[in-house]
């Protein structure tokens, strides 16, 4: 770890003033401190926002919820309103990390966690995300955890967050405070940017922006929510692929579907053509197989992620079967129905 200045703020304007290109916000620090120890991230200044007021509560706004950026993963996953109305979110969070990490990790920090690409983590390797312009050692390297969609020649890394995948399917948005004090909200699907030729820039945030909250729209009545995460072991591993599914079946047909996919792209992935194929149709294995084919039609950018195409296809089928009642929920699988 390199030496750094530590700036603890009691007021958000002061925190914003201390931010800049060489600074990093620290809240839970569950990812940042690991990366600093191995010098993958070397901020000159850490701005501690954990003492800021007003960022640690989950507040109702009519039927919507406002989740403060400092709400811990444990707090959020356990909140009774979340469990009743947005169980997908609760279950996605609980599918990630460990209890100890979730106790520290925050909502804002979870959104901003970095990729788990091993070449990003190893400072002896070229990585455009860590050291812009050095190249991408993952090209031609060991790439099992890399992305399937949305990559660029400069970066093949995947975003690992379960929570962000659930928030994307839930059509949440991110509340951001600019240095000027202006507040704006950005939908989840516009919050992240693709790697392009600058994979080091991962979101629409300016260096002195602060994520203040995540806004959850009212739950969709009559939907069933499923989070299906497939990983290399039963617990405490990043997803190979994950599917967040919110589906409403009415009169034997799919009336609504909102889907998001995790660990297969530089950010939570959406593909509205899949939803369009589903809506208006009666649930069937044949329909889901065609949806899976449509979702995974594009070739893999790295030979080691070729397996993610059949795995994602099959996981989507499994999630849709559960969300539409074609199959019983399996043990340990995260499905819940929102009352109509």
């Amino acid at each position, binding site marked *: *770890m*390199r*030496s750094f200045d530590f700036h603890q703020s009691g007021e958000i304007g002061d925190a914003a003033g201390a931010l800049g290109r060489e600074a990093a916000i620290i809240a839970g620090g569950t990812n940042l401190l690991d990366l600093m*120890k*191995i*010098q993958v991230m070397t901020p000159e200044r850490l701005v501690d926002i954990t003492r800021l007021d007003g960022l640690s509560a989950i507040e109702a706004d009519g039927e919507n919820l406002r989740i403060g950026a400092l709400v811990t993963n444990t707090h959020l996953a356990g909140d009774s309103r979340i469990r009743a109305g947005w169980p997908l979110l609760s279950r996605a969070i609980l599918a990630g990390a460990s209890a100890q990490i979730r106790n520290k990790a925050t909502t804002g920090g979870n959104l901003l966690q970095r990729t*788990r690409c*091993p*070449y990003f*983590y*190893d*400072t*002896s*390797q070229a990585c455009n995300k860590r050291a812009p312009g050095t190249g991408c050692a993952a090209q*031609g*390297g*060991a790439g*099992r*955890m890399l992305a399937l969609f949305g990559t660029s020649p400069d970066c093949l890394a995947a975003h690992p967050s379960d929570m962000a995948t659930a928030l994307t399917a839930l059509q949440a948005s991110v509340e951001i405070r600019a240095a000027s004090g202006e507040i704006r909200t950005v939908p989840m699907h516009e919050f992240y940017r693709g790697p392009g030729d600058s994979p080091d820039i991962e979101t629409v945030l300016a260096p002195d922006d602060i994520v203040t909250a995540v806004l959850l729209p009212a739950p969709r009545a009559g939907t069933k929510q499923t989070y*299906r995460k*497939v*990983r*290399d*072991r*039963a*617990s*405490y*591993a*990043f997803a*190979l692929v994950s599917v967040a599914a919110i589906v409403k079946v009415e009169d034997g047909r799919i009336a609504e579907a909102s889907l998001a996919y995790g660990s297969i792209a530089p950010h939570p992935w959406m593909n509205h053509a899949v939803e369009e194929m589903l809506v208006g149709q009666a649930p069937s294995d044949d329909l889901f197989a065609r949806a899976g084919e449509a979702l995974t039609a594009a070739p893999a950018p790295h030979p080691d992620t070729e*397996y*993610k195409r*059949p*795995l994602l296809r*099959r*996981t989507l*089928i*499994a999630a849709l*079967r559960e969300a539409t009642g074609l*199959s*019983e*929920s*399996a*043990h*340990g699988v995260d499905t819940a129905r929102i009352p109509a």
Partner: protein
Amino acid sequence: MKDFTMDEAQPRLLDQTGMGIIGKPLPRRDGKLKVSGTAPYAADTPHPARMAHGVLVRATIPRGRVAGFDRAGIADIDGVIEIVTDARLSRNPTQGMAGEATVQPGDEVHYHGQPIALVVAETFEAARDAAQRLTVRYETTDPGGVSPDKPKDTEIADPETAGDFDAAWGAAEVKVDLEFTTPSHVSAAMEPHAALAEWDGDRVTLKGSQQMLRFNRNELADSLGIDPSKVRILSPYIGGGFGSKLGIGPEAVAACVAAEKLGRPVRVVMPRQTVFDSVLRRSETRQRVRFGATRDGRITAISHDDTVSNLDGESFAEPTTQASQFLYGADGLSFTQTVARISATPAGSVRAPGEAVGMLAFEAALDELADKLGMDPVDLRLKNLPEKNPMTGQPYSARRLADCLTEGAAAFGWADRGAPGSRREGDWLIGMGVASAARSNMLVKSASRVRLHGAHAVVETDMTDIGTGSYTILGQIAAEMLGLPVDAVEVRLGDTDLPGASGSGGSFGASSAGSSTFLAAKEIRERIAEKLGCAADDLTLNDGIARGGNIEKPLAELVDTEIVAEASIEGGKTAESHFSAGFGAHFAEVAVNEWTGEVRVRRMLGVMAMGRILNEKTARSQAIGGMVWGLGSALTEDMQMDRRDGHVVTRDLANYHVASHLDVPSDMVVTFLEERDDMANPIQSKGIGELGISGAGAAIFNAIAHATGARLHDYPATPDKVIAALEARG
């Protein structure tokens, strides 16, 4: 010193002493210290005055030489003392029981990840920062091959054979000829490697995390170019080893060299990534297994050929076919090993070297033979147990493999398992698998000293307790032999000033150091008998009272001056006349998700016969720990290396997946069958920990096949491979 050689079966004295302490499931003596964080591990011992901190610098090229260091980039770091390079620094840990230094490469780089220097600073943070930022200038050379599929050289050993394999194979009515792969594994002990070195004149004391002190002292002395008498190593507590701490490591040599150069104590702790980079890994394997049989299921031909890898200069080669050579009989057997030489992190012993991965292939291939024969896999195994070791002709010293298979099958409900692919619960396919367990048993030279004064005894040996229970069982052996409560026996371990034991490795520690402790205590019994004026055979020692020849005296009175006895044991004629191994049977039930290919182990049963059980609790923990390793090798563990430069890609515990708690079923049962191995040693015990892993992963693999009707050949069975097999099956 009483020297004993195991030349013939010994009386079962531990069945006669009558204290009831041997075998008792006593909790570990060191348990409270460990769970309360107060056991002083090497890096946790109180820091001596003026101690400096060292962090190893890793090479980032696969082959070449270090031309120099550019310090400009670290000039701003306060407290950096020196960048230590030295001709004595070692390239990697020594192999287990080497007893001498390993390759000392000077300024040469032989693999990506090799320690090439030690940055020493006033604080750990400064040393780590400097080690990471230091710019190294290299002259690179062609590594010649960094990946086992493109080695720079291969060495093919002469086949080991019995009978005529080619003839038997040619004539076989039913055959399977299969290729399997297993990936590289890492020990992943919880405690990273650590060393604290301090010189006093020409003598050095190392507080380290080491498994085999008697060997480690010679390895360190040879590395430093000094006499072993000038080296003392202390390893009272070790946070797991699994083979990775068998030899003296680069951290220990570097700490000693730096401490000497700087004239102050130096501590070196390996960050987790360094453990992955430079500690001996288990080689990946490519294995071809052939079974030939008659139509009624008699195996006639067995062949098991393997390719493993290692860095040049390393003598170790994963002994993949070890158990394949003694489990089943055939008219012809043949085993050939190929070693691929690569410039990459070197390979060495990781828990149950050989069996741990060899049985993954061998026992899965045997199931495919059972499929082809239409035979129950348990019956096929039972039908082919040989009278004698098929390669050496030795009789087995004690082998209850048939009982393990039949009793295990009954307890597990094997008969109800149904046809492959016939059980389903929702989207989950349910299956059962079996595999034999076998692990060759060893007796390694070992010495112990026992002191008795009044009704208080002390056991002293340089044996280590790497989390296995050595403190506890050695105390039990002495207490049983001397008729004392276990609390009246103190156990001192992990210090090279004490008599040299076997050390912990190869599952031989408990039996070897246990036997020398037994013999020293036996010697004390003889002296007590003398004092009492009775024959040793007539002596009974119970609850602190000595009785014999109608005399009865409390030890507190009888032993008014300390009795000291030291004994050593080594293997002898019984190792030639008989073949000793632990045997068992593993059963597993799995659920496989037919969509996602996730595998969940629902229950496991290990039935094992491993000689006398010294402590039923620590033995069970060892067996379960081994089975969890087996589960990891079947489902999750996969150390990946980059094909271009050989560097380790999975360098932390987020990317290298040991089994998590949720992977391990709560229904995990271990049953020990009563056994005495009279040919193994005077306490009739055998090794335990590694038997737990040997075969366990194959039982899970076979259960996946039974659940799905699809066979896999590449370990581990991660979802990508399972769905590929499901899609190939159709």
